C-alpha cells in the first residue's frame, strides 16, 4: 500500500476488519481502467475517507463495495463477506447514502424509512422504535409524514442518512454526502456525520472531494488519483510530511527548471513541487525569509509570494502534480 505507515492498517489489532480490499480493479468496456488495483483495510469503528477529484475512481470503488459495479479483478469483503461471491450478505451488513437523492418523492419520509426497514429485515416493532428515535435525532419530526417531494435538499439528505441508519449497518457508505448543498446545510450535516463516529461497531467509508470534510471527519484518508491510491494515512500524518509551513510563489519562465535549480542550491527538497507557474516549497522549520533570501541569490524571478499551512490539496499535488476539485 502506497503511503501506508504503521498507522495505515487496522486501528485495532484484535477487532475484525470491516472492509478489506485486495488488488481491486475495474476496467470498463473500451479499456477504461477506472480502478487499477487498490488495497486498503478499514477497521471496525473507523471513519475512512476516499479523497480525489471527479473521475478519480472513488464512486467506482464504492460501487464495487456496494455490489452495483462488478469488479474486474481482486477481492473485497465487507465484515468478512465477499462482495462478488456473497453479495446479499455483504449488502445485509451495509447501507449507502448515495451522492444523488434516491428517495421516493411521492411517499412520505416515514414510508421511505419503513420501506428500508422492511427490505433489510428489521422486525416491525424495533423498526418503529428506531425510526422514531432517528426522526427526532435528525430534526424532521414535523415533516416526516409529508411527501418527500416537499422536502428541501438538506432535509432529503438528512432523511437519507436516517434511512441508512434504520438497519444499524456495520458499514455505512457515504458517497459525496454534502455535494450540492449550501454551506450552512453542509456544516449541519458534517455535525451529524461526526456524531455517528461515536457509535460502536459502525464503520464509515466516505468519498469526498472536499478537503475540510476529510480533515475534520476521517481517521484515515486514501487519496485516489486516476484509479490508484497515491497516499494513505491519517490526515495529520499526511500533512506532517509537508511540515507546518510552506512557501508558495509564482515563477517567471519555466517553473520545473526553476525547481531543479532550487533543489540544486539546497533551497528546495525533493518534496517541493511545481504546478503550472507556481512552485510550492515545504519549509520544514526553515524561516521563510531565509528561503527567500536564498532564492534572491538565484537567477529566478518570483512573484505572488505567500506562506501558509499545508492542506491535503498540497499532499495531492505533491503526489500527483494535479489539483483536487472543490478545494475550500
Amino acid at each position, binding site marked *: 500500500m502506497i503511503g501506508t505507515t504503521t498507522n495505515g492498517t487496522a486501528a485495532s489489532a484484535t477487532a475484525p476488519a470491516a472492509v478489506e480490499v485486495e488488488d481491486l480493479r475495474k476496467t470498463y468496456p473500451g479499456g477504461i481502467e477506472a480502478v487499477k488495483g487498490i488495497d486498503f483495510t478499514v477497521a471496525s469503528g473507523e471513519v475512512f475517507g476516499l479523497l480525489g477529484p471527479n473521475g478519480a475512481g472513488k464512486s467506482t470503488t464504492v460501487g464495487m463495495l456496494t*455490489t452495483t459495479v462488478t469488479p474486474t479483478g481482486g477481492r473485497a469483503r465487507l*465484515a468478512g463477506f465477499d462482495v462478488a461471491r456473497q453479495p446479499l450478505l455483504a449488502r*445485509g451488513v451495509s447501507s449507502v447514502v*448515495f451522492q444523488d437523492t434516491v428517495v421516493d418523492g411521492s411517499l412520505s419520509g416515514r414510508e421511505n424509512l419503513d420501506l428500508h426497514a*422492511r*427490505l433489510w429485515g428489521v422486525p416491525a416493532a424495533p423498526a418503529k422504535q428506531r425510526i422514531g*428515535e432517528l426522526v427526532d*435525532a435528525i430534526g424532521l419530526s414535523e415533516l416526516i409524514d409529508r411527501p418527500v417531494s416537499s422536502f428541501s435538499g438538506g432535509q432529503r439528505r438528512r432523511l437519507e442518512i436516517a434511512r441508512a441508519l434504520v438497519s444499524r449497518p456495520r458499514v455505512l457508505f457515504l458517497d459525496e454526502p454534502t455535494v450540492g448543498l449550501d454551506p450552512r446545510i453542509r456544516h449541519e450535516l458534517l455535525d451529524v456525520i461526526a456524531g455517528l463516529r461515536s457509535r460502536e461497531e459502525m464503520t464509515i467509508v466516505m468519498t469526498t472531494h472536499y478537503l475540510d470534510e476529510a480533515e475534520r471527519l476521517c481517521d484515515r484518508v486514501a487519496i485516489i488519483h486516476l484509479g490508484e491510491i497515491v497516499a494513505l494515512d491519517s490526515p495529520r500524518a499526511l500533512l506532517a510530511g509537508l511540515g507546518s509551513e510552506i512557501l508558495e510563489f509564482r515563477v517567471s519562465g519555466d517553473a520545473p527548471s526553476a525547481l531543479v535549480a532550487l533543489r540544486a542550491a539546497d533551497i528546495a527538497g525533493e518534496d517541493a513541487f511545481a504546478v503550472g507557474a507556481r512552485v510550492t516549497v515545504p519549509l520544514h522549520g526553515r524561516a521563510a525569509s531565509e528561503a527567500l533570501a536564498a532564492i534572491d541569490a538565484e537567477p529566478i524571478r518570483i512573484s505572488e509570494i505567500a506562506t501558509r499551512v499545508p492542506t491535503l490539496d498540497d499532499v495531492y499535488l505533491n503526489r500527483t502534480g494535479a489539483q483536487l476539485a472543490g478545494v475550500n
Partner: protein
Amino acid sequence: MSSTTIAESAPAALAPPRRARRGSALLTLARRRAMLTSRTPRQIAVPLLGPAMLALILAPALKKATGGLHSQIDYTSYVGTGAVGLVIPLSCVFAGLSVLVDRHSGAQRELLAAPIPRGFLVLGNLIVALVLAALQALVVVGLSALRGGVFHITAAGVAWFLGAALLFTVFMYGLAETVASRVTKEEDYVGATPVLAILPFFFAGALFPIAAMPGVLADIAKVMPLTHALALLRYGFIDPSGRGLHDIWGMSNVTTEAWLSLGVVAVFAAALTAIAIRVFSHSVVH
C-alpha cells in the same frame, strides 16, 4: 438537530447480516409499487380509456352496422372480451414506464443496495401489474355487459378466463420490463408502445376471428400469445364451444385445445419473466 442523540442510541450487538424473508421482501416491493401507483391515478385510468371505448361504443356500433359475426356468438361481448386483449398490454406498458421513472429518479439505486435478490424488483412490480390488470379486465367486461354483451359465466369458465388473463399479463409485463431495461430514454420507450401494445391487437382475433384473415397472417396469429389468450378468454366467458381455439388448433376436443393454448401462454409468460429478470439484473450492474 441533535447529532449526539444518534450516538447515544443503544448500539446493536455484532449481529448477523440482516435480510428480509423472501416472501416479506417481495410483498414489501409490491407494497411500494402499489403505494406509488395509487398516487398516480392516471396509471390506473389511462390504460382503461381505449378498451372502455371499444366495449362501450365500438362493439355495439359495429354489431349494429355489420350484423355481428353471423354466428351464435354475441358480437358485443366478442369485442368486449377482445378489449381485454388491449387493456392488459396497455396496463403493463404503463407499468414498465414506472421502471424507467425509478431508474431516472434514482429510487432504484436504494432498492439495488438492499439485501434482496435483484430479480425480486421485477417480481414485486409484477405482482401489482397482475392485480391491476385483473381489475381493469373485469371493468372492461363489466362495461361490455352494461352495453348488452351476453356472457355465459361458469366456475370453470372463470378459471379459464382468469388463468389466461393472468398468464398473459405475466408475459406482457415481462416484455415491458425487458424493453424498459434496454432503453435509456422514456421517449424511446413510449415510441415502442404501439408495437408492444397495439399492433398485436389487430392480428390476434380481437375484432374478428383469425380465420377471416389471409392464410399467412392467420398463421402468424397462431404463434402470438395474445391470440391464444383471447381464444381462452372467450372460451371461458362467451363461447363454450371454443370456436377461437378451434381456429388455432383444428382439433376435435376443445378441452385439449384449451390446455394447449394455456400451455402456450404459460411458456411465453415463463420465458419473458426469465428474460426480464436476466436483462434487468445485467442492466443495473456495471
